[in-house]
């Protein structure tokens, strides 16, 4: 008799424990970012934005709280993989988030699949990433989105001949390909496609070659810090004076450093999904709160991606009643749409990638005397053109 009672009691405890595990009190989010090394600014922006979201929405979820732990992967893929593995296996992280660069996201994708945890990509932007695991959801952007939009706009707006200048790595090649596709489909001519080595100390010879081709515009895609060097040299080489426009994706005129670039940046036209100067009440509130919490640092496109990533996590958990298991969570996030500081966005239910408006912007001085990307045209509801079969 006593034996039976004990067994029943044990079974009861086990059931309770299982129940507790189903609707965890604390959902652990491991935010894996490059916080040191050459890509530290990416990590800093996303981390600050995610924490801001957490501060603003603490206690919003009924039944669980979200715990955010930032982990530094130094921008090195094998470190990302190791950290992701440790987080899932040893620390019991329920959701992986962050991922500053494509190789870092690719390194962590198998962990998300095998560990059956959702992975929210807040930065890395090559098209293929979301195809590498069924548990990946992206809240940033894809490079082809921005490049394709630029190509479409350029062809329609009196630019006939372009030289492309991209850094020779996966995102650069993506940008070159999709810009050229859209631009040529619109009747434009790409006179020359220049690929610059990633570690390139001097752009002079490439820019001279671009100048000799006498194009209407140069399309530039380089990692964000390098963009300012290119702009300076474009101006110094007399390309601007010769009437050659500088166009590109918004990485080149990153809000984080734009104001330090000085007058050489003025007039640069870029296609992108976020500008700190975006005119909406949501964005005004976001920029103000972000600056206040971070010593007046201006949020850039990574910040808004991190902020929206946290929103996706919160809303996903709300829908699943705090169940962070990959199957339920990813299902809940698919098709979700909301108004972000950048405008209306949605998660494509088929690809789990982001659908958003791409804005065409020009660098101008704002009312406060600082340089901003001022939006003047837009291409709404743009899906990733690579996956849409364009």
């Amino acid at each position, binding site marked *: 008799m006593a034996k039976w009672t004990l067994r029943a009691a044990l079974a009861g405890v086990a059931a309770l424990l299982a129940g507790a595990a189903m609707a965890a009190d604390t959902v652990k989010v491991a935010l894996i970012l490059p916080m*040191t*090394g*050459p*890509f*530290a*600014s990416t990590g800093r922006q996303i981390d600050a934005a995610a924490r801001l979201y957490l501060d603003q929405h603490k206690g919003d979820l009924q039944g669980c709280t979200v715990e955010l732990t930032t982990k530094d992967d130094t921008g090195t893929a094998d470190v990302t993989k190791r950290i992701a593995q440790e987080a899932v296996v040893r620390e019991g992280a329920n959701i992986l988030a962050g991922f500053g660069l494509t190789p870092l996201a690719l390194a962590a994708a198998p962990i998300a699949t095998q560990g059956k945890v959702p992975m929210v990509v807040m930065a890395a932007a090559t098209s293929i990433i979301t195809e590498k695991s069924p548990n990946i959801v992206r809240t940033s952007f894809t490079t082809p989105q921005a490049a394709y939009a630029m190509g479409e706009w350029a062809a329609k707006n009196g630019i006939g001949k372009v030289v492309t200048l991209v850094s*020779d790595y996966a995102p650069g090649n993506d940008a070159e390909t999709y810009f050229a596709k859209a631009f040529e489909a619109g009747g434009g001519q790409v006179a020359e496609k*220049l*690929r*610059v*080595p990633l*570690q*390139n*100390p*001097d752009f*002079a*010879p*490439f820019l*001279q*070659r671009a100048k000799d081709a006498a194009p209407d515009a140069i399309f530039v895609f380089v990692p964000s*810090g*390098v963009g*300012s*060097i290119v702009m*300076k*040299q474009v*101006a*110094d*080489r*007399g390309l601007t004076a010769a009437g050659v426009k500088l166009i590109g994706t918004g990485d080149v005129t990153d809000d*984080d*450093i734009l104001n*330090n*670039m*000085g007058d050489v940046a003025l007039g640069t036209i870029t296609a992108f999904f976020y500008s700190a100067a975006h005119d909406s009440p949501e964005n005004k509130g976001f920029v103000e709160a972000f600056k206040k919490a971070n010593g007046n640092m201006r949020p850039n496109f990574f910040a808004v991606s991190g902020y929206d990533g946290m929103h996706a996590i919160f809303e996903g958990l709300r829908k699943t009643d705090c169940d962070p298991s990959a199957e339920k969570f990813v299902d809940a996030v698919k098709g979700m749409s909301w108004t972000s500081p950048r405008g209306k966005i949605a998660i494509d239910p088929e690809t789990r990638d982001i659908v958003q408006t791409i804005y065409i912007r020009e660098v101008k001085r704002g009312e406060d005397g600082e340089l901003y990307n001022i939006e003047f045209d837009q291409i709404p509801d743009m899906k990733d053109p690579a996956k849409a079969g364009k």
Partner: protein
Amino acid sequence: MLTILFDGVAYGMLLFVLACGLAVTLGLMNFVNLAHGAFAMGGGYLTVVLMNRLGVPFLLCLPAAFLLTAAVGVVLERTLYVRLYGKTHLDQVLFTIGLVFMAIAAIDYFMGAQQQLITLPAFLRGQLEILGGSIGIYRLFIIAICGALVVVLQLGLSRTRFGSRLRAAVDQPDVARGLGIDVNRLFAATFALGSGLAGLGGALGVDVLGLDPTFPLKFMIYFLVVVTVGGTTSLIGPFVASLVLGLGDVAGKYFVPEFGAFMIYTMMVAILIVRPQGLFARGSR
């Protein structure tokens, strides 16, 4: 065409200023200083801080970068480097590469990892049209400064008492001491000169090459290529090597952009096959 030639020369000159300090320490003092790039980075960051935070004009920043990095060089030489003169080259390499990593981490901590930008004064910007080619004014400025440096350095080392003492101290330190030459002070001064030149190169290079904490690693390979190809027995060697490599690099990237990044290495391999000791070496020691 003229523009390419000109850009190549300017780039080569800049390489020379950055690398000649290494040629001085390596060739004259027989010390492998891989941390050379860290001094160049120091000069660059000094310029950035002086210009952007304190509003010092650019032309004053150049001598300041030279003097301050030279001063830092002396301090480090007296406290750290002096202990390694007698050690093997491997020890020197390990020690100085450690310094490089420390410098990178320190700069990252204090200045952040982003690219640093400076705005050149208006009279150094823009282009001149000469003989049908356009020439960047800043690049002309670089060529003028570097050209002057080459002349001064070469004359200084071959014609002055300082130069002959230095060469004596390098070849036979004991005998030199016996003759009353203060070898320690001489080396300290030489090291300061080398570091100062790196600092100056870094300051000149901010606008052309960019500046971030990985600078010493990014350019270490270029310094080493220049010194290897040029040989370290005189300054003319690295000078000619810098020009050849600068021109080859720029022309390669212009005419065959797909292959451009490898040009500098191809040239190094080709030159070293023909002249394994470098272009101007005295032969093996």
